[in-house]
């Protein structure tokens, strides 16, 4: 039990073959009490959620709801080893995300025909994909923009590494190919297994992120339209998003989506609300740029999973629509500045500065924490956090109203993941090497998601460029949502082997090198 950063042997917290950890960390009096107080807040959020009978009913109806038993453990995984400002940044983000997901679940079950069956509420609901920028909802403040896939698959796998396996198997039992990306496949599996809440006036699906998500959407929309009677709009955002000649088409898609939502909900687009959200989107971008600026120095502050998870949520799912995230942006920036001034470090030793590229393994999101604690590899930024930094118009003028369609199209086209996995090799390959120079990185950790055809085709080109530039390129294979293909230890082994054989280094915390966490949540 130690107050000092890095004095614990973190591997000792794991129970071999166990689902949960032995105990929580002792971080010194003030940090432990802070962590304990945040745990109480999380317990209160969960307690409030289960007070409603319809939510308890949903817990017994939807298989993916069992994963929410693991909420506090998800937070523990990401706060491992953190002290001071880092711990507070992590809680500011995670606790807000938990609160937001609890509200999302509550709303879903309120409108769900099987649970709350609040038909008036349901008429105000627009369903969206999990992998979709919610930009088209920025001007509909009175409507509820809800994603069923976010809690059923996306968050579930963050909570429990095995969460998607059942749904992947269901999809494959019905003939979907096994080499399809397990994310859209699991989402399709939820729909096939009749395990999605049924509600909404209409739905907007998007061709983000790839052919895999088109497949999943096809299966889901069939059930929505033909069985549940919920009309679906297909928002087809161009994949070559950096080309000027696709932007007019992209903006027209946005106009069409807005017209569709207006038609099916009877609610008119509200420009005032849109521009308020636009201001918040710009503010989030400004903060993120400041964090990235710090990460270019020897004293990075908002990095690893603190950067990755929050950016995904704030940029894509929130898109300026929730004021609480603006407040969190401000708090995180204040804490980061404080830590930067004090020249603080999150671990006892920083050995390598890394850019993490590719689509990260979802069942092992706390891998970034492990990299730092086990090998002293600092994950300065990751591919999904390098989203658009373009400022969008935020003043309500006639010209800006026209430009707003292009801005929303730009946001939609540049949704995290598709902004790099699609759009030509400049965005995926060339810019990576520019970032390694900007961030003074000596290492690239390249996630190779084996079912993501968008990335796998460029394997050789990555290797050639890394060799030319003298950057250590470490490949880490995984299968996104399916730890049965490559386990968490399988992921770690790839780093361990590289660090021992190529770098000839010993781990900072040897207790983390091999962990028997295959049964763990």
């Amino acid at each position, binding site marked *: 039990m130690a107050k000092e950063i890095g004095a614990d042997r973190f591997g000792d917290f794991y129970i071999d073959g*166990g*689902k*949960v*950890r*032995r*105990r*929580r960390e*002792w971080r010194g009096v003030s940090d432990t009490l802070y962590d*304990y107080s945040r*745990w*109480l807040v999380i*317990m209160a959020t969960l307690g409030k959620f289960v007070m409603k009978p319809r939510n308890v009913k949903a*817990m*017994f*109806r939807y*298989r993916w709801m*069992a994963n929410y*038993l*693991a909420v*506090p*453990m998800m937070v*523990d995984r990401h706060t491992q080893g953190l002290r001071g400002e880092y711990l507070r940044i992590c809680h500011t983000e995670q606790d807000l995300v938990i609160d937001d997901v609890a509200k999302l679940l509550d709303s879903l079950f309120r409108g769900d025909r099987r649970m709350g069956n609040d038909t008036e509420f349901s008429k105000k609901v627009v369903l969206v994909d999990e992998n979709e920028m919610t930009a088209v909802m920025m001007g509909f403040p009175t409507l509820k923009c809800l994603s069923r896939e976010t809690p059923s698959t996306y968050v579930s796998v963050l909570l429990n590494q095995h969460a998607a396996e059942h749904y992947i198997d*269901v999809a494959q039992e*019905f*003939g979907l190919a096994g080499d399809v990306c397990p994310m859209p496949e699991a989402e399709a599996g939820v729909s*096939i*297994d*009749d*395990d999605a809440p049924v509600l909404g006036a209409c739905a907007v699906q998007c061709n983000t992120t790839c052919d895999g998500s088109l497949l999943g959407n096809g*299966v889901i929309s*069939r059930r929505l339209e033909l069985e549940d009677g919920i009309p679906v709009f297909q928002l087809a955002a161009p994949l070559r998003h950096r080309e000027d000649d696709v932007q007019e088409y992209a903006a027209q898609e946005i106009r069409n989506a807005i017209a569709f939502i207006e038609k099916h909900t009877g609610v008119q687009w509200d420009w005032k609300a849109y521009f308020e959200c636009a201001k918040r989107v710009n503010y989030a971008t400004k903060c993120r740029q400041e964090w990235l600026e710090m990460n270019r120095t020897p004293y990075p502050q908002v990095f690893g999973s603190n950067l990755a998870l929050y950016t995904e949520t704030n940029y894509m799912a929130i898109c300026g629509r929730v004021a609480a995230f603006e407040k969190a942006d401000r708090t995180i920036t204040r804490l980061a500045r404080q830590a930067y001034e004090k020249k603080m470090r999150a671990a006892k030793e920083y050995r390598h500065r890394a850019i993490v590229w590719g689509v990260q393994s979802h069942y092992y999101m706390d891998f970034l924490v492990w990299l730092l604690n086990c090998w002293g590899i600092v994950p300065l930024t990751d591919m999904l956090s390098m989203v658009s930094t373009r400022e969008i118009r935020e003043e309500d003028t006639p010209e800006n109203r026209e430009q707003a369609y292009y801005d929303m199209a730009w946001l939609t086209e540049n949704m995290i993941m598709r902004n790099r996995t699609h759009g030509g090799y400049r965005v995926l390959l060339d810019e990576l090497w520019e970032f390694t120079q900007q961030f003074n990185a000596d290492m690239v950790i390249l996630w190779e998601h084996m079912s993501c055809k968008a990335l796998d085709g460029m394997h050789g080109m990555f290797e050639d460029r890394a060799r030319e530039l003298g950057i250590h390129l470490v490949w880490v294979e995984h299968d996104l949502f399916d730890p049965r293909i490559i386990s968490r230890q399988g992921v770690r082994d790839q780093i361990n082997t590289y660090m021992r054989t190529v770098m000839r280094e010993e781990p900072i915390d040897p207790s983390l090198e091999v962990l028997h966490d295959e049964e763990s*949540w």
Partner: protein
Amino acid sequence: MSNIGKTLLKLLGKLLLIALGFFVVTFTVYFFNLDMKLTAAIEPFLLRHYDKIERNTHL
């Protein structure tokens, strides 16, 4: 000390005792991860329950 003062002091003492009890119990649960150990034990029952639910499973 007046009677009111004594009653207030008693009340304060009781409140402090309750707060202390709350802290000791919840901190023990927190530190030894008992909340997660309990939910981990519940999960298998829930999974067995989901397997029994009738579903309209189709493409």
